[in-house]
């Protein structure tokens, strides 16, 4: 600002790549007129790891751990998407119990992702305390998942044809206890955050995504549902054991930050419902399909599989040429589309709103960079 001439009306503010509110290495160039934004341009790729290229040089098993590292916050959904795609190629049917375990762990993982978002988002808005309450809750889920999957963040739990470990009594008991506890905490969250005047003023009518914009940019997930479009792959293209559970798809009305926030909170409640039902109905049986070949060599073909992650539709497209390695893997990640629209919505907002909108989209940068 100081070095630019007085006659210049706008200046460029560099937000990131190391900024406390970009949640990773996102860089946004903001063209500013005072504190108002004229134009915004994201610079991505700082966390590029060439996942798609790695897939081409590995066999199917070896690529599995990568899936936990694309979206580290909802790793199990990516696990599931990839496993389901490969299973489709191979024509394997996953046993029912394994599908239930997948759903339970997946929804728990969704809860961790939303809880982390909730805490981190309020920290963006300047409220530090909810962050630690959310992490306290999240810790319980991580302990539960750690018990079953063996890891706490970058899960690599699902296998082609099922899951490697069964649920035990302690997990089921701990899960029920956790859901009970989380439900009691929501009262506090709503009283302290949702009803807070400052919070409402910061989020209502800010960063509005219209339905048309969402469809144009291919927005998915809570961001789309916040704008009032009830599109959830768990319902619209049911996969795994989801058709067997009774749950709703919460939607917002205006598509502002507040709606996206409410949608996520209500989604957590629905996740709890799914987990409870799954635990109640948990069938007995094997957890691994029989006759899964040791050496995965799918027939020639192409397959697309979409799953609902905490951020939206994750689609994986695999082209097999009958080799041990996939010919091509394309990852369709939700955050990339979400980021494009977010940058649109920055215009004519304040710097403080940039942080508020950026947080409300819940982007995971490694997912964008892949």
């Amino acid at each position, binding site marked *: *600002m*100081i*070095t630019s001439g007085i006659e210049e009306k706008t*200046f460029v*503010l*560099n937000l990131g790549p190391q*900024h*406390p*509110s970009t949640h990773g290495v996102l860089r946004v160039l903001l063209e500013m007129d005072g*504190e108002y934004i004229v134009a915004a341009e994201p610079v991505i790729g700082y966390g590029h790891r060439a996942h798609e290229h790695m897939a081409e040089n590995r066999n199917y098993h070896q690529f599995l751990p990568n899936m936990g590292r694309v979206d580290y916050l909802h790793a199990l959904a990516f696990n599931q998407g990839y496993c389901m795609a490969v299973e489709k190629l191979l024509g394997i049917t996953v046993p029912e119990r394994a599908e239930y375990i997948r759903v339970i762990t997946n929804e728990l993982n969704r809860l961790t992702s939303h809880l982390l978002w909730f805490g981190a988002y*309020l*920290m*963006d*808005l*300047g*409220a*530090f*305390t909810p*962050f*630690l*309450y959310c992490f*306290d809750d999240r810790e319980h889920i991580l302990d539960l998942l750690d018990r079953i999957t063996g890891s706490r963040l970058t899960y690599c739990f699902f296998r082609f044809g099922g899951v490697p470990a069964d649920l035990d009594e302690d997990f089921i008991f701990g899960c029920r206890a956790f859901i009970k506890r989380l439900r009691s905490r929501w009262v506090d969250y709503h009283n*302290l*955050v949702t009803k*807070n005047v*400052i*919070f409402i*003023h*910061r989020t209502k009518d800010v960063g509005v995504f219209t339905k048309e914009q969402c469809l144009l940019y291919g927005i998915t997930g809570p961001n789309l549902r916040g704008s009032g479009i009830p599109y959830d792959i768990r319902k619209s293209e049911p996969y795994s054991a989801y058709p067997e559970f009774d749950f709703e798809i919460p939607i917002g009305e205006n598509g502002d930050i507040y709606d996206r926030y409410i949608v996520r909170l209500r989604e957590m409640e629905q996740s709890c419902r799914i987990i409870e039902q799954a635990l109640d109905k948990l069938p007995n049986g094997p957890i691994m399909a029989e006759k899964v070949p040791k050496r995965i060599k799918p027939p020639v073909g192409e397959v697309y599989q979409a799953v609902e992650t905490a951020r939206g539709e994750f689609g994986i497209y695999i082209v097999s040429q009958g080799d041990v390695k996939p010919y091509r893997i394309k990852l369709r990640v939700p955050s990339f589309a979400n980021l494009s629209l977010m940058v649109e919505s920055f215009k004519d907002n*304040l*710097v*403080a*709103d*940039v*942080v*508020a909108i950026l947080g409300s989209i819940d982007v995971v940068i490694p997912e964008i960079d892949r």
Partner: protein
Amino acid sequence: MDMVTQTLGIEGFRMIAGLIGVIALVSVNALFLIWMERKVAAHMQLRPGPMEVGPHGALQTIADAVKLMGKELITPEEVDRPIYYLAPIVVFLPVLLTFLVIPFSQTMIIKDMNVGIVLILAFSTLTVLAILMAGWASNNKYSVFGAIRSVAQNIAYEIPLLVTVMSIILMVGSFRLTDIVAAQSRYWFILVQPLAFILFIICATAETNRTPFDLPEAESELVAGFHTEYSGMRFALFFLAEYTNMFIVSAVAAVLFLGGWRGPILPGVVWFLLKVYAVIFLIMWFRWTFPRVRFDQLVTFAWKILIPLSFVNLLLTALALKIF
């Protein structure tokens, strides 16, 4: 001793003793407040806070201060050097001077001036100058943002603060802080002026740049605002000034609304400090509960709500004084 009092006079001796006392108080107070803030924050956030250094982490701030003193003073290449060096000093001086008139008890006051409250308000406004200097000299866009926000915010909140204080002055008829305390011999002013107290606390929070009005240093937006480019002891001075400012506004709140040093059994100074720390606790409570307001909302809130309200309060006070 006699020689000292003869050459300086009793007032001069009082000044020097007071100055030493104030510098000691400022340092100890800042150490205590930082520890207190961390403990308050921790307990509100389901964690124990610092526990390692000293009993319940009581010596943690001293360890931190030692660490800060050992840090390299980094001066970025492009800064405006004279202003950059001067800002941490300028931020601290007015803070020290305000202690001149704060009555810790009936006798424990360095200089009982007849313009006491005006002096405090005047000096506390000077802090904004230092923030502007720091922000501008840092040659960093985020810092300039912080500084500009700070100026706008301080101007906006200074007015309701002054008008609110005016309503108390009207009741007492004196700017002298000891007179204000003396006027509260029967009841505390918070009982008759509850609205004024609320307004004062809001403005004081904004004046000291604390959440929910901590826009000049909003760490999630402006990284750290005006003191982004400061390191080591220079940063520590800003920090020290912030906490001392908090003490001052709380002390003024205690004098204006909570009866100053008045209280049964315990000595006056103990009561005074108890009240001050109670107000400080309230301000800390805000910080760990509320999200941050947006800049335009902050200014709108001041000009459209606080200023009219404070004038209404002033008018009502004047009317009430006329009638009763």
